[in-house]
């Protein structure tokens, strides 16, 4: 009976969806499609389209947030006017009733503003968290969808930074977007108030505020430079500290504490110096802002007092103008900031769509892999028969790893690193970015081409390209040397599907000879395994990975060097039990260890990627190439 790969086991967290918090416009958001063309899939045609798509995907949240920002900002602009009226009509005319009236109005406006502020904050956080959680969920789904292809599309570090920092940037950008809308409206509102009182003073404020803000722009460049310098060196300092922790065994075991304490200190002092420079520039910016708003104040005072002396302006109105001048600085600053925010948002969006636009190259085919398939790899000529325990020996270990990849229908992992763009600036950066995008697009195209061709491995005589990939993954499981352990309990590590019995798990643990891991963890099955199996030895990790593959119990299991980090005693024990465990099913093991080869039903010898001989371990002893490969494993003679 065939089960589709994803629904193979009951999901541990499956619950009635109506019990969940998530909704379309609440956080965490329910995310829709993630492949091109699916409903709810992001618009990846350009960075700005992506940002607008993100806003639209939040439905009413962004417009309401903008309205809330308006209801928070406008009362702030009304306060100076009401204060002025209260002074003129109330205090100065000694009219208690009028004062009380204005005060009541002032109270109402303040209460409205406070409520608006809270509403704005609530909605802004909602929008922000929807952006973060939504992006994270999409990254997670995309990673699961792409599988081993992920590393061929986007480097892991970049995918992580999308979920960790770019997602946050989207929140900042969209908030700035709503904020700037509301600021523009409240700005207009204040202008109307000012002009209705005194056109001259209104004009002065309106012209002077942007001019003064623009005048402070020249210092923003050195400030940003100082910030960047401090941040770069600071992160370098952090990496020195993590480096010390990572190599602490060596530093405490062999020595060198003073050297690295000194290196850290040197960098720490450098950051301190840069920090003080940064602090000074921040001081300069603040001093300039004091100076500039001071100038505006002085101009207002001077003109206002003259107007008042001329009887054109009342005391209350002058006080109102002081208030407007203070108020207007905020929306103006918002305008300047938001331009920057939008640019940062675009940068984040460009990185994000690089991941979201990536698609799996496999065409959908419906054929299901038979229950007990005969597999044949064309390029090596290796045939895998049902129920057989086949060992593959190769002079070049990479040839057998490549065979395993082909049998599992995996594209080979990438070699070589992409050049880093950190140190580049301006034109060079743009060129490098373009070149990188080109290389990636080229690779995606090549992958798609490769996926469209015949794969070169047949199951029951039919090429892999004809089969449904999910059905293949279900039948043929490859456990490679890079297989990851995930954090959780030991039970989760051995049975991540949560669908197997204790007896199955115990049997697998025994076969993998990993009882010592169970014994070493306080809490047994519920003992914690840290991420990447940190805290376990290399051999222990390898044996747990083996136990997990055994619990999965697929029809065809391909194990790449499953005991390379295990000692001879344990290896011999594993070899004995592994064959017994897999009896009746198909197993392919790539290895050069006589302890394992000894137990295999058949051994295939690869030379230059082709099968040249096949037989039992004992039969093959006569083959000179075979003897040489095995001897190398045993005696390490240098050739």
């Amino acid at each position, binding site marked *: 009976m065939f089960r589709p790969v994803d629904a193979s086991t009951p999901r*541990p967290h499956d619950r009635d969806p109506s019990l969940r918090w998530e909704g379309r416009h609440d*956080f965490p958001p329910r995310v829709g499609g993630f492949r091109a063309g699916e409903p709810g899939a992001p618009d990846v045609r350009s960075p700005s389209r992506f940002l607008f798509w993100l806003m639209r995907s939040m439905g009413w949240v962004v417009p309401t947030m903008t309205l809330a920002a308006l209801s928070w900002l406008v009362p702030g602009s009304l306060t100076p006017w009401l204060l002025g009226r209260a002074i003129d009509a109330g*205090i100065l005319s000694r009219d*208690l009733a009028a004062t009380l009236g204005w005060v009541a109005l*002032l109270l109402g406006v*303040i*209460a409205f503003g*406070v409520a608006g502020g809270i509403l704005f*904050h*609530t909605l802004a956080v909602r929008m922000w968290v929807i952006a973060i959680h939504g992006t*994270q*969920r999409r990254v997670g*789904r995309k*990673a*699961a969808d*792409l599988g081993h292809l992920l590393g061929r599309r986007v480097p892991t570090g970049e995918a992580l930074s999308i*979920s960790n920092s770019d997602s946050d940037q989207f929140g900042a950008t969209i908030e700035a977007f709503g904020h700037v809308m509301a600021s523009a409206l409240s700005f207009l509102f204040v202008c109307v108030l000012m002009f209705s009182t005194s056109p001259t003073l209104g004009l002065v404020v309106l012209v002077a505020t942007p001019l003064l803000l623009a005048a402070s722009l020249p210092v923003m460049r050195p400030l940003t430079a100082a910030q960047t310098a401090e941040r770069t060196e600071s992160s370098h300092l952090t990496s020195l500290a*993590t480096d010390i922790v990572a190599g*602490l065994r060596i530093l*405490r075991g*062999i*020595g*060198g504490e003073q*050297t690295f304490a000194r*290196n*850290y*200190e040197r960098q*720490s*002092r450098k950051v*301190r110096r840069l*920090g*003080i420079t940064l602090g000074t520039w921040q*001081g300069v910016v603040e001093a300039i802002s004091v100076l500039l708003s*001071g100038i505006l*104040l002085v101009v207002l*005072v001077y003109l206002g*007092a003259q107007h*008042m002396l001329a009887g054109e302006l009342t*005391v209350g109105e*002058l*006080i109102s103008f002081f208030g407007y001048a203070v108020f207007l600085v905020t929306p103006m600053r918002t305008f300047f900031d938001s331009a920057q925010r939008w640019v940062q948002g675009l940068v984040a969006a460009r990185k994000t769509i690089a991941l979201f636009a990536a698609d799996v190259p496999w065409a959908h085919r419906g054929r299901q892999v038979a229950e007990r398939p005969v597999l044949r790899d064309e390029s090596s000529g290796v045939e895998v028969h049902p129920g057989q325990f086949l060992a593959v020996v190769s002079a070049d*270990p990479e040839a057998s790893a490549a065979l395993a990849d082909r049998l599992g229908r995996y594209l080979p992992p990438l070699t070589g690193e992409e050049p*880093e763009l950190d140190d580049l600036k301006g034109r060079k950066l743009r060129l490098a970015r373009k070149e990188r995008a080109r290389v990636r697009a080229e690779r995606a195209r090549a992958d798609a081409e490769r996926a469209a061709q015949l794969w070169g491995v047949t199951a029951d005589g039919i090429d892999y390209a004809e089969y449904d990939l999910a059905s293949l993954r279900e039948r043929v499981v490859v456990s490679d040397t890079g*297989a990851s352990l995930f*954090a959780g309990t030991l*039970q989760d590590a051995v049975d991540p599907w*949560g669908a197997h019995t*204790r007896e199955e798990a115990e049997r697998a643990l025994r076969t993998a000879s990993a*009882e010592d891991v169970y014994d*070493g963890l306080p809490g*047994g099955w519920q003992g914690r395994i840290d991420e990447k199996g940190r805290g376990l030895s*290399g051999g222990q990790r390898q044996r747990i990975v083996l136990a*997990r593959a055994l619990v999965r119990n697929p029809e065809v299991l391909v194990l790449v060097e499953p005991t390379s*980090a295990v000692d*001879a005693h*344990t290896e011999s024990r594993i070899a004995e039990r592994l064959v017994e465990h897999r009896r009746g099913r198909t197993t392919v093991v790539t290895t050069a260890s006589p*302890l394992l080869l000894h137990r295999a039903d058949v051994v295939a010898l690869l030379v230059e990627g082709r099968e040249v001989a096949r037989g039992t371990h004992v039969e093959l002893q006569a083959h000179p190439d075979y003897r040489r490969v095995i001897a190398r*494993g*045993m005696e*390490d003679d240098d050739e």
Partner: protein
Amino acid sequence: MSEVATEALATSAQTWREGPPPPRMPEGLRRPPRGRGWVTRLRDYAALNRVREEMASRTMAEARNPERGFPVSSGRTAVGFVGGLLRERRAVLAWAVVINLLASGAALVAPFLLGDLVDGVAGGTIGAGTLDATVTVIIVAIVVQAVLVLLARRASAVLGYDTLAAAREEVVRIVLRLPLGQVESSSSGDLLTRITSDVSKMAAAVRWALPHFIISMVTIVATLAAMLANSWLLALPLVVTALMMWFGGRHYLRRAPAGYITESRSYSVISATLTESIEGARTVEALGLCSHRRDQLDEDTELSGQAERYTLALRNVLFSMVDASFQLPLVGIVLVGTWGFNADLVTIGQITTAALYVQQLQGPLDRVIMVLDHLQIGLVSTTRLIGVAEVEDDRTPQDVVPAGTDLEGRDLRFAYREGHDVLHGVTLELAPGERVAVVGPSGSGKSTLGRLVAGINRPRTGSVEVGGVDVMDLPLDRLRTEVALVTQEHHVFVGSLRDNVVLARETTASDAEVEQALRVVDAWGWVGKLRDGLDTQLGHGHLQLTPAQAQQVALARLVVADPHTLVLDEATSLIDPTSARHLEGSMHALLDGRAVIAIAHRLHTAHDADRIAVVIDGRIAELGSHDELIDADGEYARLWRTWRS
């Protein structure tokens, strides 16, 4: 053998969990409120908030007192630590306070003069001349204020960054003093979190919050003083501000650290889950774990959403209080002002000044709560950082010198968990220059034996002596020249090539010795070609070494350290087979002339040794040369035959 296995999984039935794991979301949070009518709804929300509060305080308690990992110090110790740093910088601190006070004072001049001006205009007692004079004074005041602000911010930055630099350098020194046994046995995860996330939280507190606390407090005090000087009557409405800030701030500050720590933890969890899913994408695909990873991430984000909702509610309460607290006094000033103006107690100018001062208070008042918040979070992080220093040292160096290079372990027993000995009285001697291979199944205690012999852990009973002296009595830098554990972790440090090699003799080794060591391990071929030679910078962003080169550097470190005995553990050496062959020569050169205990995985290592010790279940079951053991026809002989057949 099968008996042992049964015993090993004896508790399996008790610890196995039937069915899916329990949901991590607390029961009360699993569904959104569905109450009808706003009263029920509100009650629902309050109930949810209580559950979230419990969740936050549980997380906080865990953060303060981790189940595993390094200790956490008390809040008082952390305050003492920061206080000590500030005491050392008394002059800088005093200057920062004084200059900030002056800057705040200068900011109070303009509103005061404006009040006068308004009075003058309102009273008709002002002429064009006085107006010009007042405006000139205001300009001077503003210029002075600008200069003082610049100086004050710089002084604050000096204080913040200087204190921070001292604090983090001290933390790194603490880490570098950690006892050897502790370093070898604990996973580096906890320490890594502390050195990254806790240091950055402490940094935010010291670098940003501390100076801004000073700035805000100084401004508030100065403005209050000015308000009182302007008119004590018009300062009365500030009582409302004080009360609201007090209650609002207290409610918030009591809960905020737990809330934010829960929130930031929830994001670390998301990040960890995603890191695993991304780095292990192929494994996820191969094993059909897509839906499980998705569900895990979905649950992570749901939990994170709850943490976000909690801090959102906290902030909303705070903001409503704070916003109201500095807007309401304006109303108060108008009301009190009307009455006072009627009674001729205040002038319109004083009202203007008071209104302007109240506006100036907004910024600092707004900030001071956030600053206190960061200071609290920074303090929690500091307790975790200083806590690392509370690990007790496991050795008390004596003034002893070994008389010889022979090594002897007698009656060694050791337990990682009390009552669970992994070694049961092992005795092993090692003559100078002798090679002993230790073989045995995993979990038999051979790695533990290696660590005891290398003086990393103190045995529960018995002792390891080198030249008649207990290795645990030797000072660490002396121990390193006697016996070294070769873990073959090919970690390359960020730093120069020289820094990477001298380690054990960082103060004494000359360049010639470093060069000689690199020659011995066959690395001079590529090192000699480097343009900057030994000064070449290694590590991220600089020259990246190949695994084989990194391994050579690791071996050169040991040549420089020059211990007479080496403990090699193959369990921790995951060199890829191709480079292993190239390194054979380098390794050979290192081992030449030294006594070696090799914890061997590969039987050929054992075959080449002078003697072989077969360790099974914490005891030496067989001991002798290869031929002797083959003749004895025991466990080793059986294994050897399988291997060779």
